């Protein structure tokens, strides 16, 4: 099992002395390749700080953070930019697609910024769009796509060129429940195929797609929930769920 993200006592604070504000207390956490990790917690608990550190948008004030084998704390701005272009992809609640560009052009941006040729970038963008089921809509502009389709374009952009780590900040926030679910299926598939994803969400039903859910509170990881090992077949067996159902139905034990 390869560790893709490793925090060893990594912390982030702002200011100094008595005005110092701790956004994330020293935190130790490892995320493996193939793992979908959800992070839950009230506003202000440090979820977004954690995501920004892993995404190379920010650096830890102390402790160590290793992403894909590289120490983020010792990176210079150029190396951080490289990490963002080649290793981690971001998906936000607000889609941040450029309205004047087609879906394919939006998805190609990270590769073009990385110096790939236009033709090469377009080819990879079309592949990435096809993998999220949007191959047919590659030449549409964002305004001509539904909210769910736009979010899938954003995921295609985050993963384009084979970036292994996907960071998603409330990616289903603006979507209805069925559309949000299709986004979660995509994230889960990315991980089932060996990728890694960290999802920040308030939505428990979406967090439940993750293998593991960590709970943050006041900048600390206070607890975690784990999914039972392998997914079972759809045919229900005797589980704790059955007891709940029987109680609801008022059936005799």
């Amino acid at each position, binding site marked *: 099992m390869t560790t893709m993200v490793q925090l060893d006592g990594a912390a982030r604070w702002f200011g100094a002395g008595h005005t110092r504000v701790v956004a994330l207390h020293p935190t130790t956490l490892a995320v493996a390749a193939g793992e979908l990790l959800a992070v839950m917690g009230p506003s202000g608990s440090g979820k977004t700080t954690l995501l920004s550190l892993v995404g190379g948008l920010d650096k830890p004030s102390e402790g160590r953070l290793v992403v894909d084998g590289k120490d983020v704390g010792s990176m210079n701005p150029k190396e951080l930019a490289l990490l963002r272009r080649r290793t981690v992809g971001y998906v936000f609640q607000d889609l941040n697609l450029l309205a004047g560009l087609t879906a394919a052009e939006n998805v190609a941006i990270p590769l073009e910024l990385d110096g790939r040729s236009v033709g090469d970038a377009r080819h990879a963008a079309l592949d990435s769009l096809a993998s999220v089921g949007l191959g047919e809509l590659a030449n549409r502009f964002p305004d001509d796509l539904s909210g769910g389709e736009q979010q899938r374009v954003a995921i295609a952009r985050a993963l384009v060129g084979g970036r292994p780590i996907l960071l998603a900040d409330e990616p289903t926030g603006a979507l209805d429940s069925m559309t949000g679910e299709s986004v979660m299926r995509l994230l889960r598939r990315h991980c089932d195929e060996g990728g890694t994803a960290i999802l920040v969400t308030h939505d428990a039903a979406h967090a439940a797609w993750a293998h593991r859910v960590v709970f943050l509170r006041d900048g600390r990881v206070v607890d975690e929930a784990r999914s*039972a090992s392998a997914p079972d077949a759809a045919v229900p067996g005797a589980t704790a769920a059955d007891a709940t159902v029987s109680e609801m139905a008022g059936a005799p034990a």
Partner: protein
Amino acid sequence: MSVRYGLLALLAEAPSHGYQLKSAFEHRTANQWLLNIGQVYTTIQRLEQKGLVESVSAPSPDDDRREYRITDAGRTELESWFASPVVLDEPTRDELTIKVLLATAAGSVDVSGLLQRQRRASIEQLQAYTQRKAAADPERDVAFLILLDALIFRTEAEIRWLDACDARLRALGMTGAPAGATEEGDR
């Protein structure tokens, strides 16, 4: 209640024996509400006493041999059941709500810990439902998926309620937030 109308709905489709009703009911509800055959016969007897179903075959001391069909009164009753929304007359007296209320009032209980333990258990339950949902076939397992959605949304509602309790008590300083905690917004 639901078993009674469930059997009535099945009998509205075709006359049936008790054991046929049992397996059809279980199949329709994705095998999540298992009935015992005694419960089926007791329910049928009550329906028969009310004139909502009747025995097709000659009376027999052996329950297994009797076939039942729905009466006109039964159809009317069933139609009005389908036509009426389900309204809870009073809040369900569930253990979790009572536990949280009592813990809050007690003052000596770690309410924050209680809420978090429950939250973890509920999320793990949701994860189990979600795994089964991910493995289900959207076309073949429709009944199962509708049922799973019900369970998922109820569990989700419970978690939202836990979050709301937490926020409410925290605002009053009643959950014992750790020392040195900050109220800084997400960055």
